[in-house]
């Protein structure tokens, strides 16, 4: 899928809501965290993500193809994960007190990987028109 700006945002939000929630529900007890914390982290990935998508869209303009290779979609986990951890560590995320680093890394990575995998293939099965509309679902 080669995204347009609204498609990026819609795809991120829907995938985090559906796939991210399922992964969070499964991973939370495994990493010994509480649901309030992990779902708050998930919500933060979504909210901050809108800002990130604006930045990615800007960077994409420097590419002749106006595309966003799959690898970029995977590697952007690093800056996004780091920023969110810094915010968490500084206590700037509402409703969240503290999260152990290991639990955070496992949760964040699991969500990211699942969302990335679904976006790179299976998403096209129920949403036949999605890939031709730059990731827009509406």
């Amino acid at each position, binding site marked *: *899928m*080669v*995204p*347009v700006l609204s498609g990026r945002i819609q795809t991120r939000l829907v995938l985090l809501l559906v796939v991210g929630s399922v992964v969070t529900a499964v991973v939370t007890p495994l990493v010994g965290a509480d649901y309030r914390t992990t779902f708050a982290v998930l919500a933060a990935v979504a909210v901050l993500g809108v800002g990130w998508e604006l930045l990615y869209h800007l960077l994409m*303009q*420097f590419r*002749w*193809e*106006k*595309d966003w*290779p*799959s*690898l970029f979609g*995977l590697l952007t986990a690093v800056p996004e994960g780091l920023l969110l951890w810094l915010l968490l560590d500084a206590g700037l995320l509402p409703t969240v007190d503290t999260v152990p680093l290991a639990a955070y890394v496992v949760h964040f990575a699991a969500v990211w990987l699942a969302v990335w995998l679904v976006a790179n*293939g*299976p998403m*096209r*099965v*129920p*949403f*036949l*028109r999605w*890939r*031709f*509309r*730059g*990731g827009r679902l509406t």
Partner: protein
Amino acid sequence: MPERELRDRGDLTQALLDNATWPDSLVAEAGIPVYDVPLVTVGGGIGSFVLVDYLRIAGVPTADIRVLSTIDNPWQTYEYLTRVSQIPGPERIRSDSSSRPDNIWGFPSYALSEAWRERTLRPLVHVLGEPIFADYWTPRVADVFKSMARESGRIGYPTMLVKGVVRMVRRRAGGGYFTVLTPPVGTGPTKRVAYRSRFVHLAVGYPGLRFLPDLQEFREKYGDFTRVVNAYESHEHVYEALRTRPGTVMVRGGGIVASRVLQRLMDDRERFGLQTKIVHIFRTFVTGAHGPHLWSRRKGGDGWAYQGFNYPKSVWGGQLKAKMRRLDGAERATEYKRMGGTNTPKRRRWQQQMRAGREGGWYEASQGLVERVEPAADGTLVSLVTGDAGTRKIGADYIIDCTGLEADIAEHRVLADLLAHGGAGRNPLGRLEVERHFEVKGTASGDGALYATGAATLGGYFPGVDTFLGLQIGAQEITDDLARRGFGRRIGSVRSTTQWVRWAFGRPVREG
């Protein structure tokens, strides 16, 4: 009944030829047998195939579709063109991993299928690294045909195929169309038959090849069709001759076919230890990244403009697709020009070969316009080339035209008739003007509709029509439009998913 009488029965009459709209009675008077079917698709190539695939998955039974075609299977023409333009079965084509005509979802991608089939992660790692750490991963042409054969069987394609040459499509009084077909000689009692349908789809492919004017002139003047060849026609004899005696080949053009032909020449040189020299002439010689501003710059060098696929990737679903959909007239033509131009992928293997050729002094590329070609006294061909380096005479034993110029759409009989009698018009690039849903503008007939996809429609609201993915985008738009008109179902999420499961298990698409 005498044979001649039989042959003349059921032919086009002057009244039919003269009338743009045909009442049923006019066709009956001519003695042309009429077959009723809700939808016919004309062409029978990959364009017809992907539309039929979509429609079958949308629940249209085989009895409601007829494919009118001169070829036996949808990939026949494509297979011929790829073979002569130097892409044999094991070679890979220039198509994205998820552009697969046998699968409307593009999932699993060709790379995933290949990984599964060959039990290796290599294609997936390759796709992950593209286009930064590796060239774009593309499928083997033989695998493309194999998967289409499987899908063809699954949707019952052969049962919908009717062999013959389509002569014309005319509007029917009261709505819909008549499509006149000339069946193979001896297969029916009349010269023509007509298909009466509410919907018609045209996917007739490239109208034909056009030669560079100077090469055309040479071929006509000297009757020499063996030394001046087009890359899209069979020219194996050139490679064979070069194996028997050293020679110089002039390659003209800067697209992917030029790359393929160079690869063949250079592969042969390496494999058989040949002494072939190559002179490469670019009309536009690209020396580096080019484009009007920082946000619109394409890579290039050594003569070539580099691009992974035929178009920038975002024409198939991203920004460019969204942008072009809003443009008309001159604005659209300008945008086509901005993103267009001949180009080829920057593949590592090709770069190595050309570098070796430049260093070894047997491959030389330059800018030039060829004014004329003449035979020299020593039997070689001399091209008079003007360009940045002044006017030069360049000798060669063979000239391979890789420019891939296409003929005007009016060269195709069906399209010419549609322009003259069917109400169709031309788009800013001179091809068939279609709506955003691929209905040919000006051709509506009552509650019927006439659609077109493929190369004949290049220049419309959607670029990239003459590609696998472009044909699928066209087919999707048409299927959705037909569903709005009550023909077939709109494929929603549930149907899409259940039908995908059937595809995955190779289960046939049900009738209705």
